[in-house]
């Protein structure tokens, strides 16, 4: 059964339509890469999955988004609980202005976990899962802002893991990173899909090719094509997909 199902999803910012009658299914424990040019609705779609778009004053949505068969936009749905299940890593590393340790335990603390031993365990596990533990284990009390960009981004991954989500949304996670940091983030992602379902929005077609199981191509708010990665890059069915992948526009 699909982990995430979107049906006939339409999304507007005020009068501007950002996502048009989009239907897509995302499987459990896969990495779905979403590619497409700027303003194609990739990020809007991503932010529909954890309802972060609710913060925009004139945002409107139609259609359904089901996670494990339940409509997350149903009346009375618990948004805070949803965001615990659906973690997010943003385009720019966004550590909160506190120590590395406090950044990781920020989520768990808000759920009421306060036993030091338990928090210590969460910090170690999530940093290990994000491939950052060895680099920071001796300086957990350092301000997170002092880490390098790549380390900050892996910290943000660790922080998202600390609340034990089921799904992780990556919004262009390596747009500000150097190739080596990018490689580390991708390595972490490939390992993470064993436990989590991952949706990756990326501007780098090659990144989608490297890590995704399937790739979706968005254009002007519409889903043009979705296919297993190998087929998508060798034999796209839609000429627009081919044009984008081969670099004719974008």
């Amino acid at each position, binding site marked *: 059964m699909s982990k995430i199902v979107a049906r006939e999803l339409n999304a507007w910012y005020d009068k501007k339509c950002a996502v048009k009658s989009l239907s897509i299914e995302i499987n459990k424990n896969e990495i779905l890469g979403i590619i497409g040019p700027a303003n194609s609705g990739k990020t809007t779609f991503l932010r529909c999955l954890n309802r972060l778009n609710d913060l925009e004053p004139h945002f409107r949505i139609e259609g359904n988004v089901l996670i494990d068969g339940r409509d997350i936009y149903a009346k009375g749905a618990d948004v805070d609980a949803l965001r615990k299940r659906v973690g997010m890593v*943003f385009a720019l590393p966004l550590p909160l*202005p506190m120590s590395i340790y406090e950044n990781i335990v*920020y*989520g768990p603390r*808000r759920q009421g976990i306060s036993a030091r031993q338990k928090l210590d365990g969460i910090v170690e596990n999530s940093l290990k899962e994000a491939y950052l533990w060895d680099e920071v284990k001796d300086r957990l009390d350092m301000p997170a802002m002092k880490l390098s960009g790549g380390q900050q981004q892996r910290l943000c991954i660790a922080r998202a893991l600390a609340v034990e989500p089921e799904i992780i949304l990556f919004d262009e996670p390596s747009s500000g990173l150097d190739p080596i940091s990018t490689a580390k983030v991708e390595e972490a992602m490939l390992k993470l899909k064993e436990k989590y379902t991952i949706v990756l929005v990326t501007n780098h077609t090659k990144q989608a090719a490297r890590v995704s199981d399937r790739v979706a191509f968005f254009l002007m708010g519409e889903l043009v094509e979705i296919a297993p990665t190998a087929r998508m890059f060798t034999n796209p069915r839609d000429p627009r997909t081919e044009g984008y992948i081969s670099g004719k526009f974008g």
Partner: protein
Amino acid sequence: MNETLDTSTTPPAAVKETLLKQILNPRIVQKGAFFLLLLATLLVIVPVGMIVVIIVAKGAPAISWEFLSAMPSRGMRAGGIFPAIIGSIYLVGATIVFAIPVGVFSAIYLVEYAGNTLLTRMVKLAIINLAGVPSIVYGLFGLGLFVIFLGFGPSILAGALTLAIMILPIIITTSKEALDAVPKSFREASLALGASKWQTIRHVVLPNALPGILTGIILGISRAAGETAPILFTVAAFYLPRLPTSVFDQVMVLPYHLFVVSTQIPNIEQSYTYGTALVLVGMVLVTNLAAILLRSKYRKKL
């Protein structure tokens, strides 16, 4: 046509142009601009410095333990200003108790919870305008509402409430700006981790806005400590050589006492007047300093 005209006027125009170029030389323009900016800064610093120097020079001789700790005597020409100091401390303390929670909470509500409707925009505009209302108007308002209508009489309670209403706009406006300045990305990061809106405000927004909020509180306290008009009818006693026992008591207050000794008492020693001014300025300075230290402590924590 043009060419012939040009050649006939070339020599004077060229001279003019080079002169103009020299004056508009970027380096000279830059020097001129820096000079103007420096001049403006000096114009600000010099009067402030002079005020402090004059008050200290003329007031320092009057400062003694007796001046700070004794009741006034001989029709306020001798003795100390103890009741006015205590009165000011009580009054400002009570003002803070009323103004800070109300001001900060309403700023949080306006920024985080109130939608962007016509009504809230009008409320915000009204608050900004309230900051510009002359303080004597607040004094009359306090007289009408607290002293007469609510029957508090001239008292610490009436005075503190009046001062609190006067400094609320300052606290709300600066707190609002501080809250608005917290990056949206911090809020998103917190919410994306499953934190509720209130948890986000409490653990991310407020700690980051605190230095700015403290600035507003500093400004408010200084204003409350130094104003005379709002306390004139609501709390200040002309001469009351004893300490208050409850919030319904009148008290002597430094700014009003300064007004009294400098205009109402003939044949008073000048140093007594300036000494009172020095104590008032010193008190405002100490409050500000305390708040600034507090603020820098929170800044470092971030």
